[in-house]
């Protein structure tokens, strides 16, 4: 146990989990409310509007589908990275987490092309209520992807030095980063049908 911050590599006697993990779940609870506010906004805007485009008329479904598959795959490689650490296979951890980061970047590149196509057709956030909520929700989700890349990039690179000094704490950090990453995947699982398919 670290002398400075207690219960970062062993469970807290009261909660039964490390402080880092509990803190991550509290953060995710606030994230549920953040995206919940936007989803409820979407419902109110859509039910209150006189006309609303079908997602499949204005968005590129194949691109959205590919991005869904990419994000799901990155979630699997994320959990496999954690499992590799637990099986003491540091090389595999690097491979899986590296794949997660790579797939996250591919997701953003595809998103960039989607946005570019929208701008080309003069669909901007201020063009219609639909595009206002589309850009707000996918934009906020995209910022979360960037945040994940930064954290995962740190854990893959300089942060991975901790594996030698304190493997338990390092595995805990990867687990918490994973929880966040799965949440980002989870939000997309709802965003995709709501914005693209309905």
């Amino acid at each position: 146990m670290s002398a400075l911050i207690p219960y970062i590599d062993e469970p807290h006697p009261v909660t039964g989990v490390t402080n880092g993990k509990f803190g991550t779940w509290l953060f995710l609870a606030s994230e549920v409310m953040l995206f919940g506010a936007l989803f409820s906004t979407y419902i109110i805007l859509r039910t209150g509007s006189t006309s609303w485009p079908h997602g499949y008329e204005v968005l590129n479904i194949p691109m959205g589908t590919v991005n869904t598959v990419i994000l799901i795959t990155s979630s699997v490689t994320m959990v496999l990275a954690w499992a590799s650490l637990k099986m003491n296979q540091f090389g595999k951890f690097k491979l899986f987490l590296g794949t997660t980061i790579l797939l996250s970047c591919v997701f953003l590149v595809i998103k960039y092309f989607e946005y570019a196509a929208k701008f080309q057709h003069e669909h901007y956030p201020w063009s219609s209520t639909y595009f206002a909520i589309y850009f707000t929700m996918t934009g906020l989700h995209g910022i979360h992807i960037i945040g994940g890349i930064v954290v995962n990039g740190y854990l893959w690179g300089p942060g991975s030095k901790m594996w030698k000094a304190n493997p338990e704490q390092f595995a805990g950090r990867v687990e918490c980063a994973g929880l966040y990453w799965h949440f980002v995947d989870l939000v997309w699982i709802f965003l995709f049908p709501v914005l693209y398919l309905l």
Partner: protein
Amino acid sequence: MSGHSPEEIKKHVKTYIMVFGALIFLTIVTVGISYIHLPVEQAVLLALTVATIKASLVSLFFMHLSNEKKIIYGTLGLTGIFFVFLMSITLYL
């Protein structure tokens, strides 16, 4: 999650791969349904059902909620109440 010995983790890895297969399958299903162009009510119901199943798979297995400590369930339960309240507001506007 309990069971962190290398042997147990190996079993988990098999589960992760199976869940991955199920998630890809459900993605194909939800996109397939959208091409049928069902009436709005049915389309919304089906799409949200499939999305909820996918979200459950991710949270239960990848986020290890199938086997978590009470404090985490408590935190999420409380969040759930607030979330349902927030969503129910939309019914009255």
